[in-house]
């Protein structure tokens, strides 16, 4: 499940059992994540009536899909040891700009493409300017987020009586993508779930089989060693931020079907939940380990957990507190920082 490009060497000689243990050791975060996921589902089926149902599974997958799509960029930035705090703002900006563009008479599909492209550009710009900052790069992304969402809100408010949010007729097909009763070629699956699966498969394939994917892990492991292999840190840094911006914009436009209108705060929950999904999945924020496969597990764990807690009658507030408490033990399991004694 993990997307670390630790290619299995073709001629493995170890006996099957040793191989299994070996694999578990190498993919400990994923194993823990999947174990947690299974445990949560079992608990849900025991504690919450109706937890194991097509309806509930569809709901969980739909919510996890948005979180998963929004977390893709965050995962890649985290692999390089950074954090992108502009994600919620870019989501919000795309979410209000799309209906605003539709209101000008532009076809929705074209508007979506333009916005995803704009997201890529904004992300790349963020990456270019934050590259030199290293430790403070996340603050740069925050500043970028503020600027982008502020600009988008001013743009959409110009000539409109509504400030910030945008009202517009949303095409039925776009609503269908994100709706619970959405249908994918007649199947009762909201298309956004299919989109998420497709994005996941493509991402895992690309990371495993392209120079870019390998560059990510090489840079996360050791910047200098990577530069000796002619891996450009700048280009990769730029690329992951561009991807993050593009995916945020993509999530933002897809969420329009969910929100029914441009709603700038639709991205707000993703400020920290994307980080939580990345961390719970097992990608170390110190760079190097983990990957999008881990984040997919993390997003599912978070969503199943939320659903379980709601089913057990917990308020939104209590859910948030529980998720907050969960993060430290999860990170302590697989991303403890080394003791200072061992760093001298």
């Amino acid at each position, binding site marked *: 499940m993990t997307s670390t490009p630790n290619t299995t060497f073709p001629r493995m000689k170890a006996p099957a059992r040793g191989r299994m243990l070996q694999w578990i050791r190498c993919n400990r975060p994923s194993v823990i994540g999947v174990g947690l996921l299974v445990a949560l589902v079992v608990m849900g089926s025991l504690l919450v009536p109706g937890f194991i149902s097509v309806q509930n599974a569809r709901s969980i997958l739909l919510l996890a899909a948005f979180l998963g799509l929004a977390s893709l960029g965050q995962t890649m930035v985290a692999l390089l040891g950074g954090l992108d705090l502009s994600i919620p703002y870019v989501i919000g900006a795309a979410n209000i700009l799309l209906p605003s563009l539709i209101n000008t008479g532009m076809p929705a599909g074209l508007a979506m493409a333009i916005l995803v492209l704009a997201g890529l550009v904004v992300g790349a710009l963020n990456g270019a*300017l934050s590259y030199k900052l290293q430790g*403070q790069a996340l603050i740069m992304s*925050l500043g970028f987020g503020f*600027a982008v969402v502020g600009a988008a809100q*001013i743009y959409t408010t110009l000539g409109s009586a509504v400030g910030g949010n945008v009202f517009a007729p949303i095409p039925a097909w776009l609503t269908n993508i994100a709706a619970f009763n959405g249908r994918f070629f007649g199947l009762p699956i909201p298309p956004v779930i299919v989109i998420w699966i497709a994005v996941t498969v493509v991402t895992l394939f690309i990371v495993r089989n392209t120079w870019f994917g390998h560059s990510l892990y090489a840079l996360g492991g050791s910047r200098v060693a990577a530069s000796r292999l002619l891996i450009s840190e700048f280009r990769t840094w730029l690329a992951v931020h561009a991807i993050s911006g593009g995916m945020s914009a993509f999530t933002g436009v897809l969420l329009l079907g969910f929100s029914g209108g441009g709603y700038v705060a639709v991205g707000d929950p993703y400020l920290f939940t994307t980080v939580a999904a990345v961390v719970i999945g097992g990608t170390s924020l110190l760079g190097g380990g983990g990957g999008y496969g881990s984040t997919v597990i993390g997003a599912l764990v978070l969503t199943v957990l939320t659903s379980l807690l709601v089913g057990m009658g917990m308020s939104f507030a209590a859910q948030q507190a529980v998720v907050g408490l969960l993060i*430290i033990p999860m*990170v302590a399991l697989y991303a403890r920082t080394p003791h200072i004694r061992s760093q001298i």
Partner: protein
Amino acid sequence: MIDTKPFRSLMRRNEHLFVPIALFIVLLVAAALRSPGLFTSSGVAGAILVAAPLILATMALTPIVMAGRGSVDLAVGPLLGFINVTLVQWLVGSGWTSPVTIFAWALFVGAAYQVLQALVIIYVRVAPVIVTLSSYLFLTGVNLMIMPRAGGVVPEWMTKWGAGTSIISPVLFVLIAGLAIWFVFTRTAFHIHLRMTGADERMAYTSGVRTNWVRIGAHLLGGMLVGLAAICHTALISSGDPVQAGTYTLQAITALVLGGASLSGGRGGAIGSVLGALNMFLISHLLATFNFGMFSGFATQISFGLILIISLLINVLLTAPKIQAMR
């Protein structure tokens, strides 16, 4: 002939304050032109009242950030909110309203929670940014559980604080108390330990600095300042609010960066933080004079974003030649 050496070394040590000071002067001049009302006694009083929680929250972040390891405290806003709602809901709700109780509670809760975070960072050895992220989510949830919606009342003696009609006000005294705590702290050797730990933890550790105590101390100090910030915030809104205090996190981080502190540790101080917070206040004050109407909220946001970006870039330009010289 005048000996310029001490002056030069002072300049060198405070290079990071150039940008915030310059920005502060520009903003003051602009404010004087656009809104002379700010420079009346009630204008200043209002400014103190509104800016005090942010100034103190930014100061609270300062020692924690100075301790290094990229430990910017994301939980500062929700912790401020936690103190705010517990003050209103638990203390005032149970009739404990004496100033001594209120201050003791605010300082104790702030310090205790921060020390807890420090202990997790030290002994569980999880990166500070993750510990505080976890705290952010946890406290945001807990605040809503304690107080599902804004409301409640503050103690009788505090209701007058929010008036902000004269410069010499209780809020000013709390602010001065915060600065005094900071001043005392910088006179101690602990301040040097903190700077050295933040600048190079391995060096400090091997040189015999008790780095764990320093980290705990930094959080303790930060926690006490959060407590004072929470009192000023509570006085400002005269009620409890489980949600809004959360926004102080991003504001304080922005102010901290505007004040020239380095998030990688070792560099920072009260002057920079106070300047950063004041600059934030002045920016929003100035923007409000332009009658942006419905845009005012958005204009503020975009300005903060752009100024943050520019300020970071200027910091890079200032420090870049030095880094090259080091190599």
